[in-house]
């Protein structure tokens, strides 16, 4: 387990050095996306109005407050990623996204895209929205505002993390590994519990 401190945009090289179990913090730009954002972008063919090249994207539907023409974060948390699995390979391949941040992970096709194009999945501590919100310095832009709270958000973050590398560019998938190990231990656990 290694600790990394990165700055956005991430280079392919930086991302490829990461291995599952490593801990990452970073400074810079973070894009917020959710189900609707990606339906609009991918299924309905709307080109993002800003480049996502080298950037991290987080699965969120933030609570924001509009003060004048500025947005202030009230509560920004992270949602379960699996619902958005089918969009992830495209984000990586077509738009050059280097990290997807969420909870509970993505499936095989995303893992393959990560290996091929150089991207990682970073697991955040779910439910820790108070801390996450504090790490957001500014809401720099809200694109596709009509989709709010599932628009495309550009945040500036400081010391964002800790994030655990849960899917890397070497084909490793921490959630799969942990589950497989649990299943392996199961006969022993059943025996001890006296249920077999």
């Amino acid at each position: 387990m290694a600790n990394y401190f990165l700055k956005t945009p991430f280079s392919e090289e930086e991302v490829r050095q990461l291995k599952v179990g490593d801990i990452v913090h970073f400074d810079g730009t973070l894009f917020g996306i959710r189900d609707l954002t990606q339906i609009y972008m991918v299924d309905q063919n709307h080109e993002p109005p800003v480049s996502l090249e080298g950037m991290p994207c987080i699965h969120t539907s933030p609570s924001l407050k509009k003060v004048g023409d500025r947005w202030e974060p009230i509560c920004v948390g992270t949602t379960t990623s699996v619902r958005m699995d089918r969009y992830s390979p495209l984000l990586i391949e077509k738009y050059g996204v280097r990290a997807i941040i969420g909870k509970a992970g993505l499936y095989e096709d995303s893992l393959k895209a990560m290996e091929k194009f150089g991207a990682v999945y970073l697991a955040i501590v779910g439910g820790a929205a108070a801390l996450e919100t504090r790490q957001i310095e500014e809401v720099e832009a809200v694109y596709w505002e009509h989709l709010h709270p599932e628009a495309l958000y550009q945040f500036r973050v400081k010391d964002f993390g800790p994030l655990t590398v849960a899917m890397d560019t070497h084909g490793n998938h921490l959630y799969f590994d942990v589950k497989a190990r649990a299943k392996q231990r199961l006969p022993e656990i059943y025996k001890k519990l006296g249920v077999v």
Partner: protein
Amino acid sequence: MSDFDYTLVEETGKQLYVRALCDLPPDVRRALAHAYEKESQPGAKEIFKTMLKNVDVADGKKTLICQDTGLPIYMVKIGSGFNWDGAEVKERLTEGAVRATREYPFRGSSTHFLTRVNPQTSVGERLPVFYFDFVKDADCLEILMVPKGSGSENMSKMKMFIPADGINALKKFVLDTVIESGANPCPPGIIGVGMGGTSDLVTRLAKEAIARPVGQRNPDPDVAEMEIELEDAINATGIGPMGLGGDITTLAVHIETAHTHITLNPVAVNTQCWPARRARAKVYPDGSVEYGY
């Protein structure tokens, strides 16, 4: 009818929702701190540290612990020593939940099941969820408020086994459900288990089980022993905090039980996330309110 002012119940209903979302109960904090101490894997330890830090940040800034403000559940115990107007209590608590949502303000999650329209009130048809119970030799109204987020609620499961399957089938079911849930319910939380009753009662028992303070054992020693056995079994899976691997996968297993039919053998699991949020209040006939967890 007495001249009790029920706006107090409304205010309490509102306060309870906000308190539950911002102030994690001391027993849950202790359990997380203990988990941090005990955890041997460095990655998992870092996660526990972050959870504890998050609770502190929420304290300091009086902000939400988690963004999912959930669906409101009010578990109400009505003391028989005072002439409480139950219908009024229900209406006022509902209004309290609406006011919490609008006045705090936070994102409401209640949605019409068909149109999926969100009224941004946290309530709606048959919401909040209410449990009413009655207590002798008490004059107060005891209200326990539990906000239930979707990540953990989505992992709920119920099954009707047959008596021949015995208690072992129920234990195995609990363990298998936790493994299947993996990272989704933001482990390590409270695993609430219902055993016995009917299909509806067993599900309700599992929900009551998650609302118990962490580690408070079932008074029946046989059931308490089963709670410990299941905790050990679940922690032996190594699923760990956030499903990323570690020694601690659950803070506690709580089991609630009921008599069942001679030919029934039901079990239900309800998972509560690591921020096992709840808040309690006792409202007295003289208009005083005592807040707790």
